[in-house]
Structures are given as C-alpha cells and as structure tokens.
C-alpha cells in the first residue's frame, strides 16, 4: 500500500474521530463554562478511583447512564422515521468534517498528499449542502413522534433552518470571491501571510460583515442559543420530546458535533484554518527543528505550571475530603511532572529533522492550530449561549429575511466592488 492510498483512509478516520473525540470535551465545557459564567462550580462529583478531572468523568457517567436507561418508543409512532431522525442528527454533521483541510498538503518527494478526507472543487458548497441535510433529522424526529408539541418544534425548526441557509450561503460568497475559489484548501491558503503588515490575512478582517452574518446564521443552523427555538423547553418543548436514552443522546451528541463542525468551518473560512498566524507553511517547514524545540519547551513549561497548580489544589482537597478524592491532585500533579520531564528529556535529544519529518511536524503544528481555533470558536458558541436570551420566533424570521439576507447581498456587492476597484479580478 502506498502512502497515497493509505493517507485518504487515515484522513477519513481522523475526520470522523476528531469531532467524536471532541464531543465529551464539548459537553464538559458546556457545563463547566455555563457554571463558571453563572458563578457555580459545575459538575465535579463523578469519579473513577478518585479522579474527577474537574468533571470530565461526568461525560462517561452520562454515557453509562444514557445507555442503561430504558429505551422508550411511544405508541403509534412511525418507527422507521423515529429511528432515522436521531441517526441523521448524529451523522449528517459528521460528514461536513470530511472537507475541512486539517493541514497544508504534504509534499513528499513530489507526491502531494492533501491532508483532508475529501477533495472537492466545490468544497464550500458541499458544506452548505450537507448542512441543509441536518434539517431532515429534526423534521423526521419531530413528525415521527406523533406528538403535537414535537411537530410544532419540527415545523419551526424546518422553517428556521431553510431561512438561515440562504443567509449562510450568501455570506460565504464574499470569502469565495476573495479567495477566487470554492475550494476550502484554496481559501485557507489564501489566508496565509499578513494584511497591512501586522494583521493575519484572515477573512475575519477581509470580510468582517460576512463573518458577522455567517456567525449569526451558523448559530441558527445549529439551533443554538439565541436561536434554540426548536428545543424551546420553556414553551413548546422540543422536537425530541419523545426520545429517551440513546436515541435522545444521539440528538444531543449531534448538536455538539454540529457545533464542532460549524466551528471548524468558521475557523477554516474566517480564522485562517490551519494557518499559524504570521508563520506560513514554507517558513515553518524551513525551521521545523526550531518549531519542534519550541513546542517541547512550551509543553514542558505548561506541564510544570500545571503541576504547581495541582499542588495548590491538593491543599484545598485535603481540607475538604477525607476519602480517595483527596489524592487526585497529587496523582495528576505527578503525571504532569513526568510529562514535563519527558518533554525536557525529549528536548535534549532533538536533532535536525529530515525533510519528511519536518513536514509531519509542521502538519502536526498546523493541526494543533486548527484544533485550538475550533475550540476557541466552540467556546464562543457556549459563551453566547449563556449570555444572550432567546429570540422570539417572529424576531428570528425577521432577522433572517429582513436583515441578514439584504446585508449579505450588500456584502457581496461591496466585495465585488472592492475587487473590481483593486483590480484583483
């Protein structure tokens, strides 16, 4: 098997596993961030051998709970669609990951290996197409539940998503025009380098209006606050009212995967994707050994700082608990210390890297960068949720049709005009 044949499979695997592995992190973050914003501590009680990881273990507990709960199917539902709903809810968002470039293509002795699962010349349109399929999940689930409330939720959801798809599509046009391509790879490449010498050449700065519209629309598309009218637990009760156990969990997970996917698309389109600010691929590849060293140093530093923090934490724990939980900080601190030491030791053995190795290191750095950007945008999703109140339905529709779409059209016009006047066509 040649590298060319293996890499796509690996990439598909990564594209599928990346959001799935981020899922528990997201759930944890959602709870923890919401708690902190509301001056609470959030989840912190589930433990394995005293290890709680600040509540991450709750994700496991949740899974166990959801899987062991009774699976209920209401009477007189359309079973096929009832199952199809959660299935689509989980897998449709997963697909959009396939097209995100995770790092610059490897160029191993002439063979170019794109580091993404699927390469399509209509890239961005694919994302839009896949996103539009998300609505089926909601609609089928809602309709199949044989319940007026879920149906209402479903209808609202369908109308909302179709409406905002328009704005979404139109807001992206600006970036496409700037990058002169629909291909996400091209769009990311175009965001390398700097703007006016000090800003990263991100579309965020080139397309601020487009970004805003995109952001609002992507919130609506993922049914997140302040547009979570589909769920609307305080009024109509959402489309997944009749779901329980794992089927509910699939909706639940689907929502977070959609957020991660949306974050990835946002990062790719507007935050320079895998691009490390100021440092383009060529520069990084040229200094790959230095990059590795810096990485190890910073990793070591982070580990040592964490170890120190855990030491302090240990004191608090021993004051509070009298069981095995009090040992958690010490164990984690030790681990951090070991990891830090490992980084230091590794630093001692770093030697100039070969070309291929350098490229892999750079790819890793770029993937990390993308990951960080995804997490930042995801954090923003959560942050917004605990800041803004929910929209009224007519406000939602008014915003979509009367504000965002005209603004998006204006954005296209302005971008076009600028492009024409700057002579970049």
């Amino acid at each position, binding site marked *: 098997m040649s590298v060319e044949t293996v890499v796509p499979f690996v990439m598909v695997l990564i594209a599928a596993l990346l959001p799935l592995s981020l899922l528990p992190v997201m759930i944890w973050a959602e709870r923890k961030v919401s708690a902190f914003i509301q001056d609470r501590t959030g989840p912190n009680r589930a433990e394995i051998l005293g290890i709680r990881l600040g509540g991450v273990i709750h994700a496991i507990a949740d899974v166990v709970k959801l899987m062991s709960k009774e699976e209920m199917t209401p009477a007189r539902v359309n079973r096929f669609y009832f199952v199809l709903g959660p299935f689509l809810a989980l897998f449709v968002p997963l697909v959009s990951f396939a097209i995100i470039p995770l790092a610059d293509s490897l160029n191993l002795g002439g063979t170019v290996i794109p580091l993404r699962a699927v390469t399509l010349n*209509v890239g961005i349109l694919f994302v839009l197409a896949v996103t539009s399929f998300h609505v089926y999940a909601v609609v*089928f689930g809602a309709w199949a539940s044989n319940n007026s409330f879920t149906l209402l939720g479903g*209808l609202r959801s369908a109308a909302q998503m179709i409406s905002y798809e328009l704005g979404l599509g139109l807001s992206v046009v600006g970036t496409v025009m700037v990058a002169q391509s629909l291909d996400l790879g091209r769009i990311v490449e175009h965001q390398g380098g700097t703007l006016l010498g000090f800003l990263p050449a991100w579309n965020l700065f080139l397309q601020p209006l487009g970004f805003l519209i995109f952001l609002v629309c992507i919130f609506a598309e993922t049914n997140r606050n302040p547009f979570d009218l589909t769920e609307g637990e305080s009024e109509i009760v959402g489309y997944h009212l009749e779901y329980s156990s794992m089927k509910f969990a699939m909706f639940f997970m689907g929502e977070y995967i959609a957020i991660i996917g949306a974050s990835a698309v946002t990062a790719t389109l507007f935050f320079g994707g895998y691009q490390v600010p100021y440092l383009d691929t060529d520069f990084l590849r040229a200094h790959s050994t230095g990059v590795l060293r810096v990485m190890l140093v910073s990793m070591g530093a982070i580990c040592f700082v964490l170890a120190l923090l855990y030491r302090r934490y240990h004191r608090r724990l021993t004051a509070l608990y009298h069981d095995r939980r009090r040992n958690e900080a010490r164990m984690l601190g030790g681990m951090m210390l070991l990891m830090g030491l490992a980084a230091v030791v590794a630093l001692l053995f770093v030697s100039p890297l070969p070309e291929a190795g350098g490229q892999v290191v750079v790819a890793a750095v770029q993937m990390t960068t993308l990951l960080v950007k995804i997490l930042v945008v995801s954090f923003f999703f959560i942050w917004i949720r605990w800041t803004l109140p929910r929209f009224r339905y007519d406000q939602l529709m008014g915003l979509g049709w009367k504000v965002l779409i005209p603004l998006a059209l204006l954005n296209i016009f302005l971008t076009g005009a600028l492009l024409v006047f700057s002579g970049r066509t």
Partner: protein
Amino acid sequence: MESVLFWILSVVAVASAVLTVSRSNPLASALSLTVCLVAVAGLFATLSAHFLFIIQLLVYAGAVMVLVIYVIMLLNLKEREMKALGLSGPRVFVSSLVAVFVVALLARAQSGSGGFDPVSPVLDGSARRVAEIIFTSYVYPFEVVSILLLAAVVGVVVLGMKKF
C-alpha cells in the same frame, strides 16, 4: 470503481423512484424521492458534473424536498385519507400501458439512431467551467430564470396569504 458506483446509484435511484410513486404515505414518498435525488446527484458526480452534483444536493435535496416535507407535515393527512389516495388498480393499468408504450417508442427511436458516443471523461463540470458558460453564452436565459424565480417568490407569498 466507477461502474460499481454507477450500478449502485442507479439501482437505488430507480428503486426509490418506484417507492416514491407507490407509497401511500406522502412522507414516505417524499423520503424516497429524496433518496432518489441524492442518488441522481451521485450519478451526476460519476459523470464528473461536480457543479450539478452539488446543486442537486443543495437545491433539490436540501431545499425543495424540505419544503415538500414541510407542507406534508403542515397538512398532516390522516392515515385513512392517505390510504384512500394510494394507487388504484385501473389507473395503474392504464398508466402502465402508456409507460410501456413510451419505453417501446424510445427504444425503437434509439435503435434507429445507432448507438451513442462513449462518455468523455475529460469534460470537467466544475463550478468554474459551468459558470463561464452560463455567464457568457447563456446569460440571457439566466436572467430570465432569475426573473422567473422572483415571480415565483412573489406568487408564493401571495398564495400563502391567509385571505387567498
């Protein structure tokens, strides 16, 4: 690889088309149709008509069918009514006769033409290429279609009003 894809997609397309027509539950029909449309989109992809592929997904599967399903749910037909509106024997018979006639007609026409050229793999149906043609040779039809869409939007809004 391509051929396998083709067969799979065409079988799915035809099968789901049959289901579309035969299912009494309109939502089932709609879902089948969606599957069919996705399959056809796949067929477009095998023809390397990438733009069509994505347009098919985006417009047909993503928008039109959602609209159809939306309306189906809105009307929320009762089970009994759905059954009453299912296929009926005589109609199927008559329409099948017509269908057979059409197929025979076309088969005969094709046999007269003497075969087709093989598919040209070099033709790239990417968005860029299609756009170039549309905005050059076909710019007037394009504008006409956009006016048509506008008219349709206005028409739908008027139809959707309560008083109508």
